């Protein structure tokens, strides 16, 4: 035994945990899930739900696992008959007033009440003769709807607003069986991070208006991804139903976003389902842009890069992956390149209770990846340089009308785009690329953490990742060159990333280089 750790036995499993660990976390390490409602790893524990009661030998009563620290030599029983009976009682109380509306409840399928009742609740009810408590549905504002009948008063939402968002607008009002969550009448739940209460709610009491009745939990395909909204790089889960993204949810990563994402990121999924996507490659021929196959498209790109001597401008959108930026710049090695990423600016909205977590002002996910690879953030200078260059490579960056007029004066434009920019008369090549929800890739966040995102949808038409287009055009120039076959190989081949593969990053990413936060103009 060392001073920093304690050893205990949980359901017959011996575990050693750091001193001060709560029993519920120690049990998690032992592979035992203690059923719980009020406990959440990112919130303070009030032990109000009484669901996590466990039996500890030599203690006179059962103790809540979420607030009891693990002690040396403790023998804990989570699934003993007494502990099970206690949980059964708690569940019976919770179900007295809980409506039987699972068929129309949005949470059904991912509801903790459903799970634990199914696991160890009673089959019947002893309260069938009494009417259930009824309270009307309340609109908490912004995206959140409160359905009090389903509430089990775990108070996670109240604690989130009090201790994490630090804007105390929710509280428990009334007492006993009349208790409900209520909102300060002078306020709405319009905090930038308030949408997290929907995810925190273990039952379907707080639901998202945006997602209401859209899909059932079991219909959804879940894909690990990274939020493309800002330089924070929050880990998210992309939920798709029949190839349509229906919602984004936070994915726990204790190093980056813990269990939260902001509402801006949460709502920013509609572009992923755009129907006006570019599906076919085209090169400029005698009759304007003519649809063609990848071979001739790549040949034209390679020819455009090889034939000129002058400067090249690369205009990047904020969601272009590290692989793509790296390979586009490698394709252009030997030319004088001005590369910049378009970084829309917004207000920085920190989440008060969490260190180093905010909706960042720089609303471009891969700004630091671009900077690491040698592209800058000086967008306006890069656009201004376009008329003096032979070639502009436009990588999924939206242009304003004035910028469009400037870029239209460049020698030629290669558009690697998800959505074509029709206004450019000097477009030589129009190549459809995949968006970040259709490809694998890596974003590097503001702390230099490289994080993977995975494909959640099938790419439209003949769209390919931008790095694939760049790498294959690069390989055409010399027979000795071979283009990487996968995104992981593409990443590993970049000198700045030093052989880093996707497998090394795992699902929580890895800090590869602390990047000095570059200035954005």
């Amino acid at each position, binding site marked *: 035994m060392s001073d920093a750790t304690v050893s205990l036995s949980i359901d017959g499993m011996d575990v050693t945990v750091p001193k001060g660990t709560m029993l519920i976390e120690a049990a998690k390490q032992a592979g035992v899930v203690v059923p719980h409602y009020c406990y959440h790893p990112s919130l303070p524990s009030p032990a109000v739900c009484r669901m996590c009661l466990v039996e500890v030998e030599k203690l006179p009563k059962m103790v809540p696992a979420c607030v009891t620290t693990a002690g040396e030599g403790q023998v804990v029983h989570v699934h003993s008959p007494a502990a099970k009976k206690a949980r059964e009682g708690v569940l019976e109380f919770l179900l007295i007033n809980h409506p039987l509306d699972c*068929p129309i409840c949005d949470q059904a399928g991912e509801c903790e009440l459903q799970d634990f009742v199914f696991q160890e609740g009673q089959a019947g009810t002893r309260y069938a003769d009494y009417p259930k408590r009824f309270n009307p549905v309340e609109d908490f504002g912004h995206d959140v709807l409160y359905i009090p009948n389903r509430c089990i008063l775990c108070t996670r939402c109240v604690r989130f607003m009090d201790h994490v968002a630090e804007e105390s607008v929710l509280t428990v009002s009334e007492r006993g069986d009349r208790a409900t969550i209520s909102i300060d009448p002078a306020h709405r739940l319009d905090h930038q991070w308030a949408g997290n209460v929907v995810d925190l709610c273990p039952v379907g009491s707080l639901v998202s208006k945006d997602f209401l*009745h859209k899909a*059932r939990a*079991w219909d959804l395909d879940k894909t690990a991804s990274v939020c493309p909204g800002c330089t924070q790089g929050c880990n998210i889960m992309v939920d798709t139903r029949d190839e349509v993204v229906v919602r984004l949810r936070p994915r726990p990563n204790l190093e980056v976003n813990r269990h939260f994402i902001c509402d801006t990121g949460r709502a920013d999924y509609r572009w992923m389902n755009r129907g006006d996507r570019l599906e076919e490659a085209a090169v400029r021929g005698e009759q304007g842009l003519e649809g063609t196959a990848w071979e001739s498209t790549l040949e034209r790109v390679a020819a455009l890069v090889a034939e000129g001597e002058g400067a090249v401008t690369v205009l990047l959108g904020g969601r272009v992956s590290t692989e793509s930026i790296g390979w586009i710049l490698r394709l252009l090695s030997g030319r004088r390149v001005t590369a910049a990423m378009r970084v829309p600016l917004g207000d920085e909205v920190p989440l008060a209770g969490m260190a180093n977590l905010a909706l960042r002002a720089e609303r471009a996910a891969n700004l630091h990846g671009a900077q690491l690879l040698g592209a800058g953030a000086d967008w306006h200078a890069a656009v201004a340089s376009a008329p003096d260059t032979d070639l502009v490579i436009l990588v999924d960056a939206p242009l304003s009308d004035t910028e469009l007029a400037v870029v239209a004066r460049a020698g030629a434009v290669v558009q690697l785009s998800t959505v074509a920019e029709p206004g450019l008369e000097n477009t030589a090549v129009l190549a459809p690329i995949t968006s970040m929800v259709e490809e694998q890739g890596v974003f590097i966040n503001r702390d230099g953490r490289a994080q993977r995102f995975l494909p959640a949808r099938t790419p439209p038409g003949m769209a390919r990742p931008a790095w694939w287009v760049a790498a294959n055009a690069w390989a055409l120039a010399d027979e000795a060159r071979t283009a990487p076959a996968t995104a992981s190989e593409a990443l590993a081949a970049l000198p700045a990333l030093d052989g880093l593969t996707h497998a090394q990053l795992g699902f929580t990413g890895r800090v590869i280089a602390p990047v000095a936060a570059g200035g954005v103009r």
Partner: protein
Amino acid sequence: MAIGVKVMERPEQGVSYVRATLKGMALTFKHLLQPRVTMEYPEVRSDDEWRIATRWRGTHRMLTDEQGRSKCVACGLCPQICPANCIKLVPGEDERGNRYPLIYEIDEFRCVFCGYCQEVCPEEAIHVGVHYENAEYSRDRFVYDHERLAAQSHPVSTLWDPTDPRGE
């Protein structure tokens, strides 16, 4: 070496067809005098003597409540359980905020009539019917939409009850 063949001695009476014919005719005339067991379908359909089993699983029917609205709340369990993948469901919300199916279609051609949809339905809305006359003039008429399912009036199946396995 020849195979030894034994030629059976058969009495003349035993191999005559006359006797067999008379026997057959006797059976026929006996049935002429007995009560009829066949039903002249389609002039006569099921009656008290001959009734289709209550556990029969035929084309679907959506039950409605007292106001004539469909009982379906679009929970999505029937398309989930359906082994033939024949139910198409798109949920929506009506003007009172109730969940209801915007689109509810059953492709009766794909359906294998297992009755799982009825068994899984928490609202007792979708049922398989005691019904077998499904002929149509075109294939697309076999995709039953929500209105058509709700308009069906045939009795619904009782399915198999494990507590009463023999239907008594």
